[in-house]
């Protein structure tokens, strides 16, 4: 059996990729994709621990995360469309109204 450390390392690497993507990309869709990567990194951790500790709740939690991720994708894409309609651009750096 593969030790859990490998899973965790993989998960951490994936999460880091997601974070880096989130902070470096300017396209909104790329940001959403980065978000999905981070969520799935977390899912991987859940599943790994679930197998390790022989407890089903970790896997159940993953389903919830999937549901939330799906909803988030739906809402997020809708927002992206709305944003594009307003600004004819998907560059997040051009949407900076959320401030003082």
């Amino acid at each position, binding site marked *: 059996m593969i030790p859990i450390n490998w899973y965790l390392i993989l998960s951490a690497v994936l999460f880091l990729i997601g*974070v880096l993507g989130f902070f470096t990309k300017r396209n909104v869709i790329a*940001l959403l994709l980065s978000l999905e990567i981070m969520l799935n990194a977390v899912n991987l951790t859940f599943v790994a621990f679930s197998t390790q500790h022989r407890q089903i709740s970790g896997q159940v939690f993953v389903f919830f995360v999937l549901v939330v991720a799906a909803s988030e994708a739906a809402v997020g894409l809708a927002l992206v469309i709305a944003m594009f309609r307003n600004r004819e651009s998907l560059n997040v750096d051009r949407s900076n109204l*959320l*401030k003082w």
Partner: protein
Amino acid sequence: MDSFSILWLIPVLPLLGAVMSGFFGKRLPKNVISLIAAGTVGISFLIAIREFLAMSVALEVPIIRNYFTWIQAGRFVATAGFMLDHLSGVMILIVTGVGFLIHVYSAGYMAREEGLYRYFAYLNLFVFFMLTLVLANNYLLMFVGWEGVGLCSYLLIGFWFTRKAAVDAGKKAFIVNRVGDFGFILAIMLIYWTFDRIDFASVFGRLGPASSFAVEPLGSVGVLTAIGLLLFIGAAGKSAQFPLYVWLPDAMEGPTPVSALIHAATMVTAGVYMVARSAVIYNHAPGALFVVAVVGVFTAIFAASIALVQTDIKKVLAYSTVSQLGYMFLACGAGAYAAGVFHLVTHAFFKALLFLGAGSVIHGMGGIQDIRKMGGLRYYMPWTYRTFIVGTVAIAGIPPLAGFFSKDADLWGAWNYPHYGKLLWLVGVIAAMFTSFYMFRLLILTFHGSPRYTEHDVHHVHESPKSMLIPLGVLAVFSIFAGFVGVPRILGGSNYIEHYLSPEGNEVSESLGTSSTEALVMAASTAAALSGLLAAYLFYVARPELPQKLARKAQAMYSILWNKYYVDELYDAVIVWPIVRTSREFLWKFVDVFTIDGIVNGIGTLVRWSASGLRQMQTGYVRTYAGWILLGGVLVVVWFLR
């Protein structure tokens, strides 16, 4: 005495009238308002007569009616109840009787006034509170009436509220009265602390000869003297005694019938009533009584001397009122409570008469109050003139009118007072001479001689309407005859009122002095009155140039009197000015603007300043927010992995 009693109706009827005029008066025609106002007081007067007669055949006096428990807090109990005895009986007759006449008079005097409903609402409310004051069976309920009449006095002085002088006078009256009321409140607390009760029957019962209640021995200075002095501070405020008299002359800014009812006949005598009511306490506090007598006689001569040179018809009468109240306190202080109340009664008649007469003059002159601009009015106002003569002779103390008997009773009481009684008497007689002089001066300058006004000032001098003249006539009749209830024994009378009022006051000092002394004392006060009359005649009829000569010769004295001893200026400098300055410079500009506003604004500035730094965190870029979230997440993780 369990027969059907409608005592409570006496004050409640004027209250009803006040409610009706106050709430619905704006929509009612003026004659209906007048009818309601005068009618309720008139019916009260009839009931008062009925109750008064019922009391005189009652087996046991006082008649006490407790209606409900007003305040109950632990062992402290105050009931709302009335007490009818000889003293309060006389008072309710005066208040409702004179009050009724003045209501009738007001209907004529104020007929063209826009705020008539407001006027009558206040006036009826005043009668209600005054009746509460005199009928109350405990000190606290008395205090309610006491404050209520003060409120109505304030409202009515400032009735013409568009005139600054009237508003200022109202405020002055209210504020000066607060000083006295403070003394009264302290006295009530001290009474409760000492006696555990505040109703008259219990308090006086515990001071009675048959009581085993431990009070300080007679003659020692202690809590009873303190109570007496504090009560007198209250009385001095309400009854305009030195040094709290300053509000009364200013109160003449109100309508003249108000001056007659509140500031001459009834409210200002409340202090005398209170001292007479508390006679049992005062009899145990000779020191307090001495203070009452001295302040009384000093006020009498002080105010009388100011009145000598005043030129406003109402101001003369106002200082005269202060002076006459001084006589009442002189008598009370000398232990002759009955004489003080007797003078209160006669004074209510003739001073109300004089004020209403003055009102009639002002009415006829179209608002002029300066007696230097009058003269010769007797041809135009024959009935006002005749009744005014009656009032003048009565107040001057010329026999056989009412003022003679009552003033003589006061002075006779002072004469018999063991502590410096003769000196007090002498000062009183001099004040009587002054009284006679300034009143005849007023009479001569107003009604005699040739007119000093021009047609330009006054268009048409006219006699007042019947509704004003009839009260004048009735009051004149009483001013002539009211004295006969107190004819002293030496003149063949029985001094009925002195006996009548003595159960509440003192045992009458019948045996004091010999009858020849009494005759001499009486002759002296009559001589004083006549010399005042002669002096006025000399000064203003026989040799009219004399007053000005004298004024020039005694320039300093004249200007002191003319400026009322500079008391108002002194109060302004010593009390008003420091308070205003402290309020403005320290309390307002330092405490309020600098300190309190500074703290509040400082907090605001601090928040604004720190926020202007903190808000730089919010750039509007998604990346920044994500960074903060990441930082937060890392911190949480670090916290748990620590």
